[in-house]
């Protein structure tokens, strides 16, 4: 899973998912032994174990992986308040002045988890726009609402 390794490197995280690795189209899973023992028909399988993320050009981590990384010491993190957190969850970028705390070097191209307290809301990449630093939104948990809306339509 090169894409996963590249993603982890981009946020400065060291993480090795347990269980058997499994690919389903563009999705990457880690499947524990209890579940792997009960897989019978991979052709019709649509989900298995823990979703690690999706590969769409670059690796997009799952909510579960972000949750785990958010609890770990080591990955690059920025913290925001609730107002900025909600804007981020709505797909917006985070401006540098809205970051209340950070761990890791906020340098161009580096990726950071976006934290609100102990919770990880997504992640983004440091960019400069109009001479100002911002964290470009690459994935946020509001994606669940956007997916649900897509399914309803």
């Amino acid at each position, binding site marked *: 899973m090169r894409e996963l390794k590249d993603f982890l490197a981009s946020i400065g995280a060291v993480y090795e998912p347990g269980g058997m690795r499994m690919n389903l189209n563009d999705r990457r899973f880690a*499947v*524990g032994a*209890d*579940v792997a*023992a*009960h*897989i*019978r*028909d991979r052709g*019709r*399988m*649509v*989900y*298995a*174990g*823990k*979703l690690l993320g999706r590969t769409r050009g670059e690796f997009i981590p*799952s*909510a*579960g992986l972000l*949750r785990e990384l958010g609890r770990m010491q080591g990955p690059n993190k920025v913290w925001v308040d*609730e107002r900025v*957190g*909600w804007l981020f*969850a709505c797909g917006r970028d985070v401006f540098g002045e809205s970051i209340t705390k950070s761990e890791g070097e906020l340098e161009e191209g580096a990726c950071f988890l976006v934290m*609100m307290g102990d*919770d990880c*809301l997504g992640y983004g990449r440091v960019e400069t726009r109009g001479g100002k630093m911002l964290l470009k939104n690459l994935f946020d*948990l*509001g994606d*669940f*609402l956007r*997916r*649900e809306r897509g*399914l309803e339509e």
Partner: protein
Amino acid sequence: MGAGIFLKRYETMGHELTGRERTRRAIRVNTLLASREELEEKLSARGVKLTPIPWLRDGFHAEGGESSVGASFEYLLGLYAIQEAAAQFPIEVLAPTAGEVVLDMCAAPGGKTAQAAAWMGNKGAIVAVDVKRDRLYALENNLERLGVENCVAYCADATSLDYGSELFDKILLDAPCSGNFVTDREWFTKRDIGDVEKNSLVQRRLLGTALGLLKPGGTLVYTTCSLEPEEDELNVQWLLENHDVKLSQVDGPGSPALMEVLGRGLSPEVAKCRRFWPDETGTQGFFVAKVVKP
């Protein structure tokens, strides 16, 4: 066909329904990611009042709050699921435990699958099956958001499910059914008795398949959200007449299942099942049977 014929049927079963009964908003604490206390504290800070539903382990009625319970940080973080109260009851009856192997036969959109995973503490395995690929996307989203890690899901027709020689400790058959008017305002204009009869035949095929996949001594929970006896008591009666099974008593809210429907007397065993009437439980219509394979 209109509301009249159905409301008249319910009246003959002892319930004078108006057709305007509605259910209260309910959520389920996702114990994989949060405790009841933690969620109560967080939602209370947002002005949401949670009231425990006494007959559910993890269920609450949710009232108030500035934003929708379907669009909060806590929802996105998977700390709770929006799940109607009656729809939380089947897993309470199935009571899956860590290490068991459970089959969820008509699993999408995955609310009960995720609830089963929470009861199992993400240990053991859940095999979730649904025939409709488009509905499985919702299941996948729910499994991801709610942190479920002990499930394998398939797009397959459960009426002819072949799982090799493997048998399951427990099976949930939340069968596709006619639904009920409480959760669908257009229900009376969409349904007729022909639909009910067609669904009943599919449900019997599913029941037969389920019993073939169940371990001796295993438990099958059969549920519908239909108030129509063809999909409920008459299917259980059919099961008793055509398969070697026993029924276990289902205790909880609502009423014992009917022993006489549409002019036909049923086995007293059928009364061990549970029927949720909207005027009694304040929920949608629901039916739950607990079947044990000797």
